């Protein structure tokens, strides 16, 4: 059994100073990181506008993410019924939307195609992998 499948003990998220810390359980495997089902979500001013996601398994994958609605005006942040049910989210619940960012050469790219959606009330998350999407996995990020 991997460290990821057991909720305790909870390792600290390395050197990331954490102001808000919570463990989110992914309700479906994250592609490429199927074994890691628990992530610490860290929001702090040093990371802004990014949010850190640190996986709690042996491989300790860590990600930076940004709200896709800040990246692309009019981004369609709507959930299908299946995902809503998986997250235990009521229609009016405020959800956290996080698109993973990465460096590619001298650019910063955002994966708008497969955002991670978290229901903070339930601390459940899922990475959406829609069969069709108008959004790119490699959207260039420009900050003001």
């Amino acid at each position, binding site marked *: 059994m991997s460290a990821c499948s057991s909720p305790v003990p909870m390792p600290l998220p390395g050197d990331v100073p954490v102001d808000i810390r919570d463990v989110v359980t992914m309700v479906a495997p994250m592609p*490429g990181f199927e074994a890691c089902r628990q992530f610490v979500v860290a929001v702090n001013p040093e990371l802004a506008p990014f949010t850190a996601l640190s996986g709690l398994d042996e491989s300790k994958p860590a*990600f930076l993410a940004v709200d896709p609605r800040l990246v692309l005006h009019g981004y369609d942040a709507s959930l299908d019924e299946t995902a809503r049910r998986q997250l235990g989210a009521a229609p009016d619940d405020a959800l956290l939307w996080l698109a*993973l960012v990465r460096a590619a050469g*001298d650019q910063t790219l955002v994966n708008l*195609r497969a955002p991670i959606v978290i229901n903070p009330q339930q601390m459940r998350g899922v990475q959406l*992998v829609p069969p069709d999407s108008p959004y790119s*996995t490699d959207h260039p990020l420009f900050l003001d």
Partner: protein
Amino acid sequence: MLVISRKRDEVIVIGDKIRIRVLRVGAEGVRLGVMAPPDLSVHRQEIYDLIVAANRSAASARGDLNSIASRLRQQATRSPAPQPQA
């Protein structure tokens, strides 16, 4: 690999919860209907592989996140570079 021949409207059952029906067979390809519990995700492999590659390239060692955040911020605030070809 198990190889099974199926005609239109015939079904394969996997376990007791997954059914795959052949909806249409044509020169362009095969159209399948997949019935699976909602907690099981079903993807086209090429889409899944695309997200695997994007996720893997976004992963980093967790101790570096602050420096990576500042680097990504710097890159993203430079004057816009030409858009990559789709």
